[in-house]
């Protein structure tokens, strides 16, 4: 299947001379949720802005559903919804008017039933006649999402959608995202909350310094890069690691109460069986065992550090 968004060799140098993107290539499949991760200033927002038509590219090409974003901007922009990072709203407009305005801008005829559904889905219906300046930050964020959904986009960009949003609201936002995915909408999101990407994304792209460092299926990435840690709590504390266990590269923690063993889940042999046997042979009695998987956050930090 052809990708719905295809970015090839995209570059952007701002007038100040800052090179925000250095030959980025990326393909986004229809219906997937792609999380775009990267530290501040990595180029995430510039990439999104070019795809959406807000910033002119310096070089390279972007197509959405086969249409070039510069040449065929009418087709591409009609398909795209954008929720920007900044909470930018017309303070003196009502929720209803501003959401209807967005639909009109995208060339769609007024459809009060659709606007009503969007507002209800985002728990904004009882605020529809309020001016935007009367709303809390979390509600304004939802208004921006409602604006982006007002014209029924096929591709939705969420730029840091949960920044400054409380936990319960964040959960309800992800429910909306799930519903959109179920309806076949392609979603690209940037986030600083890596656990969110871990929870909802299908694929992860990591960008830093204007370059894509990696694009992977989330599970494959976790499996490939995920290191696991076995923690062995001991019945009697050890002063030092016995020589008979020196080949296992163990570390002693908690004043000798615990042994930590790092292993690779994708390795042919994890060495766990042998380690446990060696522990029994050495006469070390165990109190408890636990394992811990490295999170996407650890992986992310590792990739970005390695890229430096």
């Amino acid at each position, binding site marked *: 299947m052809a990708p719905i968004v295809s970015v090839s060799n995209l570059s952007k140098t701002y007038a100040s001379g800052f090179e925000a993107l250095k030959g980025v290539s990326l393909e986004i499949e229809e219906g997937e949720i792609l999380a775009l991760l990267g530290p501040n200033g990595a180029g995430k927002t510039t990439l999104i802005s070019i795809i959406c038509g807000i910033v002119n590219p310096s070089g390279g090409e972007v197509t959405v559903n086969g249409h070039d974003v510069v040449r065929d901007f009418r087709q591409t922009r009609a398909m795209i919804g*954008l929720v920007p990072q900044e909470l930018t709203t017309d303070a003196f407009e009502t929720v209803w008017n501003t959401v209807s305005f967005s639909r009109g801008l995208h060339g769609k005829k007024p459809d009060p039933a659709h606007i009503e559904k969007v507002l209800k889905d985002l728990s904004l219906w009882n605020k529809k006649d309020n001016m935007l300046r009367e709303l809390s930050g979390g509600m304004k964020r939802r208004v921006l999402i409602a604006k982006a959904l007002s014209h029924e986009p096929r591709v939705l960009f969420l730029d840091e959608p949960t920044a400054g949003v409380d936990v319960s609201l964040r959960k309800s936002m992800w429910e909306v995202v799930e519903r959109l995915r179920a309806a076949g909408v392609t979603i690209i999101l940037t986030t600083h909350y890596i656990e969110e990407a871990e929870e909802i994304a299908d694929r992860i792209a990591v960008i830093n310094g204007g370059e894509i460092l990696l694009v992977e299926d989330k599970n494959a990435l976790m499996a490939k890069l995920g290191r696991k840690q076995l923690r062995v709590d001991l019945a009697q504390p050890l002063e030092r690691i016995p020589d008979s266990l020196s080949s296992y590269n163990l570390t002693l923690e908690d004043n000798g109460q615990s042994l930590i063993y790092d292993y690779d889940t994708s390795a042919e042999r994890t060495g766990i069986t042998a380690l446990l046997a060696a522990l029994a042979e050495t006469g070390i009695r165990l109190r408890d065992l636990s394992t811990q998987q490295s999170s996407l956050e650890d992986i992310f930090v590792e990739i970005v550090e390695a890229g430096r």
Partner: protein
Amino acid sequence: MNIEAIKSIYFFEMARTRRTLLQSVVSPVISTSLYFIVFGAAIGERIQEIDGVSYGAFITPGLMMLTLLTQCIGNGSFGIYFPKFTGTIYEVLSSPISMLEIVLGYVGAAATKGLMIGTIILITASLFVDLSIAHPFAMIFFFVLTAVTFSLFGFIIGIWAKDFEQLNLIPMLVVPPLVFLGGSFYSVDMLPPFWRAVSHFNPVLYLISGFRWSFFEISDVNPLASAVIILAFLAICMAVLTWIFRTGYRLRN
């Protein structure tokens, strides 16, 4: 053509006019009335008719132009500057809408508002003085063309401006002197020859003169020259805008 988008921008802008009705409509009416009281009644009593037209009537076209220019530049610039300032411009830029359509929406609304206020001033003026319009079509021609041209000019200022000071620079510092020295309140024939010659370099003189001619058939310059000047200024504004859209100047950079 994305008609829905043009309509959306146009009505969105007009809604702002409704919200700020007092400031948008009532204040120009009050300031015009003040001009009539001060210039028309107090000073006008002591000034004889100019070319057979009473002084109060004589200044009406100039007053309309003064307000039209200020309003159109103000609305045209604010309409596009404000979304740039708050950041909501992202939405217009990411919509399937061409720059021409953006201009039609914003400039259309700014010009409409200018024309509405100009008309209100005309009605207010008719309460103070006897007015007749000798060439209604020419009057509408100058009225509409000036509104559109200066709304476009304002739109350019709004794109160019980086802060509120720059936004107000031209409407506050450049336009009033040009209008006041462009024969709003006098005929340039009343000036000494040197200043009369200098006045002919002021483009606003041509606007006011042409507009006044459409009312009273009296003018400082040939009405055709007035028409040419306003059309030329319109062409310049359109050329500048075309360049802005081609390069993405201060919008997509």
